[in-house]
């Protein structure tokens, strides 16, 4: 009986999530009257705007991930090793992006870094891109920090660090060769989450007026019928691929089995 109820609940949930998706997928295939076709997808993929904005967002995502790793891994490591008392504070700080709306942050950026400010980053495209990357990194911070911190919890950071030091290693070597490889599954899951966030982000890119994928989806959605549905399916596929990769990475890291 209990089992039966559980199945009912599961089916209800699955329907709740799956039906709209199915409807959208069905609609995206109906561009040609009367038959299912991939016309909408073809149209989207062939759109030079799609290619340009998607490429832009992918590159931004990669830079954001690199920046996030460089920022978060040493920070989380240092906090765990030397400042364990500060952990609650740092955790709180990394959670702030969840409660401060992106739009507030962007207006803050624009105020601080506009063309007549002391550091006119919005004056050039490159400067604005860098600013956007900082914004993305901040949005991803809660996920990245949590992932890395959990990864660090699984290893004996203090003793491994001391072992490496006694063998002659400096901080750089310790971070790159001892800490990073051991939290790599965690870092990668953080990275895929970051990727998914950056690809779908709209507010910051739109307000900073960068040709990113999020604003493109919005424009397309406002002007076309079938293509936005196709685009949404593609975006979902990307997100799910990221999630699947997180699972794969966690499962197949060859030395991590001992700790699980």
């Amino acid at each position: 009986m209990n089992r039966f109820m559980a199945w009912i609940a599961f089916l209800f949930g699955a329907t709740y999530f799956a039906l709209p998706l199915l409807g959208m997928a069905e609609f995206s295939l109906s561009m040609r009257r009367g038959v299912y076709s991939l016309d909408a997808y073809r149209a989207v993929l062939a759109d030079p705007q799609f290619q340009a904005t998607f490429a832009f967002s992918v590159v931004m995502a990669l830079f954001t991930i690199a920046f996030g790793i460089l920022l978060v891994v040493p920070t989380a490591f240092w906090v765990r090793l030397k400042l364990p008392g500060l952990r609650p504070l740092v955790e709180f700080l990394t959670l702030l992006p969840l409660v401060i709306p992106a739009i507030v942050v962007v207006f803050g950026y624009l105020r601080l870094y506009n063309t007549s400010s002391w550091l006119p980053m919005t004056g050039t495209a490159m400067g604005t891109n860098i600013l956007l990357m900082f914004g993305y990194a901040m949005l991803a911070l809660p996920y990245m920090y949590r992932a890395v911190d959990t990864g660090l919890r699984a290893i004996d950071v203090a003793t491994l660090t001391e072992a490496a030091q006694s063998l002659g290693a400096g901080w750089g070597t310790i971070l790159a060769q001892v800490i990073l490889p051991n939290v790599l599954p965690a870092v990668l899951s953080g990275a895929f989450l970051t990727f998914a966030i950056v690809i779908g982000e709209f507010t910051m890119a739109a307000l900073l007026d960068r040709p990113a994928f999020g604003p493109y989806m919005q424009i397309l959605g406002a002007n076309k019928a079938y293509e936005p549905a196709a685009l949404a399916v593609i975006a979902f596929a990307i997100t799910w691929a990221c999630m699947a990769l997180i699972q794969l990475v966690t499962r197949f890291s060859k030395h991590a089995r001992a700790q699980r």
Partner: protein
Amino acid sequence: MAFLELRNLEKSYGATRVVKDFTIGVEEGEFISLLGPSGCGKTTVLRMVGGFETPSQGAIFIDGKDVVALRANQRAIGMVFQAYALFPNLTVAENVAFGLKVGGVGRAERGARVAEMLALIGLRDLGDRYPFQLSGGQQQRVALARALAPRPKVLLLDEPLSALDAKIRVSLRTEIRAIQKRLGITTIFVTHDQEEALSMSDRVVVMNGGRADQIGTPFEIYNAPTSRFVAGFVGTLNTFDAVVTDQAAGGVTLDDVPLVIGRRLPVAAGQTVGIALRPEAVQLGRDPSREVVLPAKIVEVHFMGAVVRIAAEVAGRKFTIDTFNRVDMPPPAVGKSVEISIAARDFLILSDPVEGGQPRL
């Protein structure tokens, strides 16, 4: 100057001094144990030598050079931890090669050294395994090989055997000592296990409350403890107070039972002196070659295999007596009245003031 010299080392955390005036010279190739109860500062001393803690005062010389200002990674010190601390993402061979790689040793030389080290610890064929595929004993041997590979000047081991089960602990003990002797590496070994310290070391430092209470060979520490603490901590001991009757000749009475100590005593007649006796120095039965023979009553018998530990009541006190198991001599029955014999030279005279008087088990 000794090869490794610790001079008047002090370490305080806030207002608590956890290491006090710690001085010792360790000769090149010597194996020294720091022995003491939990919290007495053993690890702290070791970590100061390793460069993980800065002494509040004092100096550390390695090979004539003051190393206090050097960071841990500049000291050329090998360290083995209780928790193994192997790098989980590296294979056994890569773990052993880590220090060599960091030190800029070329690939070919590195490979040769790793092979040599794996042979030394008897794990020649396990180079490709990951740490999680090894037993605790194997992991600790790899940790030893990893620490030794870059040819450190000093090897530090912090309770390396504590996480292992009894059998492995004893066999690895012998193995570590053999490797240490073969390489002639200066070693400090931290343990709270007296058997470990006594059986492995050239010299033992017994620590108490952050201080080195006594430094000596295992033989000296066991047979001539200079303080009540050392006497009580190392091995089992019967201690009791006796009233001096003859200071010069060493005569005392224990509840009106006269005993012959046979040496000049530190206190005058009429005063109390602390006397101690190892359980194995007491013999069951009358032995005419021993100066002291006393009546006793058997209270408890613990058959432990090679050793039979007996508690007997002597002059109103409980004495612990150890005898070797013998096929032709079953242990005495509880409640039986016997005689015990003690040689005068086996009495230890405790110089610090008397407290208690009960044997410590």
